[in-house]
Structures are given as structure tokens and as C-alpha cells.
């Protein structure tokens, strides 16, 4: 059994424990009255349990460990094809000498993105979710085992390309960063409000293509701010490099805020 999260994973080790683990259980109260339906006695139990409580507890554990190790953690979310992986490749290549990175790649299938990231020389772990549409805190809890957190400045988690499901699952990150490319609809923040509401930062990507498109960037940003008035927006092109410096400055500032950075 995994001692970090109490799951039954047998991947790395298996041994007996002489004590109880903190398994999840519901706080419950039985009411005094019984019901009778079709002759079957029944009673109502008050459960009052948040369905995401288990994920949130694991995410809080991840976050505490990242804080303790001084790692700045970002959860990159977007629809498929917005350019998350290309932004990562460019960022890693440009900042690799100044900051120490690791990457967790989330996809339903293939390790194509992990291969691209590995080519930059940065440690990467691919997580395949199979039929799953999002990463959860439990997956991150195991994926981080592969990294030397003591010598890490930034952990980038590239979530499964999906603007709906990953919005619900906290991974223990410092910030969700939503990527929206200008080849998509400018009303995406209104169509997928949960994601834009939960993100702290938006990267408006592929802005080098704006002269060729009808995309109204200002309108798009206005929509994003309706859903989330405090969202920080960077216009970037991972291809031309336009706007990437401001994103890099924000990243560097984030690492300086970490407790053990010594800056």
C-alpha cells in the first residue's frame, strides 16, 4: 500500500503495516426515526460529505509538500491544440539555464508530448489517463516521485486537453494557467466559464496569427474578465517569441515567492 496517499498501488513496494491508516470515511449521524417502504424498514443517514473531499485532501498534501520544497507549480489547462506543449518547449529552452524545471504530461494516450519535452533536456513524466478526461491529485502524488523536488524551481503540469473536466480537480498547484489560442473562438471564456473562473492566468497564444484572422482579442479578454475579473492575461506567441518575456518575468517572480528560494 502507498504510504503517501493510502492507495492500494503495488508498483514499487508491498509490506505489512501494524497500524491503521487514515482511510477516508464519512462523518455520519443516524437519525432517530425509521421509514417503512413496501414493508422494508429503512433509515436515513445524514452523510454531508463533499464529493471532492478526497481529491482536495490529496491536493492539499501535494501543495504542502511543494511549499515545503519551495517548488512553484503550475497546472496548464486548455482545449486540445491551443499550443500548451509548444509554449512549454519554448519556455523550457529559454529558461533552462536560469531555472530548474520538471514536467508532468497528461494525455489520454501516447507519450508523444513527453518525447517532445524530453528533447529539451528537462525531466518529464508522462501520465496516461486512458478513458479519463482529467488529471487528479492522486496521479500527481505518484508522478512527482520521479523528481528531485529539493532541486526543483518550477513543476509544470500539462493537463489533458479539455476545457471542462480539469477545472474541477485541484492538483495542489499554485496557479491554474489557461491557454487560449487566437485560432479558437473569442467567446470561449463564456462557453467554458468554470475553467476561466478557476484560472489565475490566461495565455492568449498564437498572437502572431492575428493579422490573418477575424479574432477580436480585446473582446476575448473582456469576456475572460467577465468570468474572472482578477485574471492576469499575457499575449504570447510561442512561435515568434512575442510576449514571452513578460510570461518569463511572471514565472521568475513566482519562484522568488517560494519559501526556500533564498532570494
Amino acid at each position: 500500500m502507498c504510504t503517501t496517499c493510502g492507495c492500494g498501488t503495488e508498483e514499487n513496494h508491498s509490506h505489512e503495516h501494524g497500524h491503521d491508516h487514515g482511510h477516508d470515511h464519512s462523518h455520519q449521524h443516524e437519525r432517530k426515526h425509521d421509514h417503512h417502504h413496501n414493508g422494508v424498514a429503512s433509515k436515513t443517514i445524514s452523510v454531508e460529505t463533499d464529493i471532492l473531499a478526497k481529491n482536495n485532501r490529496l491536493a492539499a498534501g501535494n501543495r504542502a509538500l511543494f511549499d515545503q520544497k519551495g517548488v512553484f507549480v503550475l497546472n496548464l489547462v486548455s482545449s486540445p491544440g491551443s499550443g500548451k506543449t509548444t509554449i512549454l518547449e519554448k519556455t523550457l529552452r529559454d529558461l533552462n539555464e536560469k531555472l530548474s524545471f520538471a514536467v508532468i504530461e497528461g494525455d489520454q494516450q501516447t507519450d508523444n508530448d513527453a518525447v517532445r519535452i524530453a528533447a529539451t533536456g528537462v525531466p518529464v513524466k508522462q501520465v496516461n489517463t486512458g478513458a479519463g478526461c482529467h488529471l487528479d491529485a492522486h496521479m500527481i502524488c505518484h508522478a512527482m516521485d520521479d523528481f528531485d523536488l529539493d532541486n526543483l524551481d518550477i513543476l509544470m503540469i500539462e493537463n489533458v486537453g479539455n476545457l471542462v473536466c480539469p477545472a474541477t480537480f485541484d492538483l495542489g498547484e499554485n496557479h491554474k494557467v489557461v491557454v487560449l489560442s487566437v485560432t479558437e473562438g473569442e467567446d470561449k471564456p463564456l462557453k467554458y466559464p468554470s475553467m476561466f473562473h478557476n484560472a489565475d492566468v490566461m495565455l492568449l497564444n498564437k498572437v502572431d496569427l492575428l493579422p490573418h484572422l477575424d479574432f477580436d482579442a480585446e473582446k476575448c479578454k473582456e469576456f475572460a474578465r467577465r468570468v474572472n475579473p482578477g485574471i492576469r492575461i499575457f499575449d504570447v506567441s510561442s512561435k515568434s517569441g512575442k510576449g514571452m518575456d513578460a510570461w518569463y518575468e511572471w514565472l521568475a517572480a513566482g519562484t522568488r515567492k517560494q519559501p526556500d528560494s533564498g532570494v
Partner: protein
Amino acid sequence: MHELSIVQGVVEICESAAAGKRVLAVVMEIGALSNVMPDAIEFCFEACTKETLLDGARLVIDRIPGKVHCRKCAAEFTVKAYYEKCPVCGGYKVDILSGEELRVKEMEVE
């Protein structure tokens, strides 16, 4: 469809609370801003409860409306999504009062 993961969470919570007893009904609370579709939850419920203590249980969903408080003019109003503007002053800066719930409220056991 993350509703599948949500329903698996419901089954886990209920089986733990049922302590071996058969579950006849489950009451869930789903907020309008919870990013979860009640219809999809119903769709997944039957499949996810097969051969568990919840097999055949009735699912009742309490839908909680989204209620927000305008930071500018202090009006309180109901919303269906995060981007709706204040009907009084037109502002978008609001605090969420309710609507993000995603809970197992109670259940009926044998």
C-alpha cells in the same frame, strides 16, 4: 466526462457510510456553478452502482441555484453561470454565496 469520477466518489462515500447495509436512496446536492451536469450524473449512476451496496438505489438530486453578491452595489441575485452581470449596477465583480456545492447530503439504508 468527469461526472464518471464524481459518481465513483459518491459510491465510495456511500459504501463507507453504509457499513455493509444496502443503500435504497442517495440524496446529492449539485450547485448550478459546480461544473457538473445533473443529467450526466444520472446517466453514470446506474452503471457505477452495479454490484455495489448502491445497486438499484434511487438517486435524488437537489439542484442548488447560483447566488452571488455584487461587490459594487451589494445586490444579491441568482445566476446560471459565472459571467452574468449585476442586474442593478451592471458590474461583474461578485462573491459566490451558493451554487458550487457538490455533496452527498444523505442516504436511506435498509
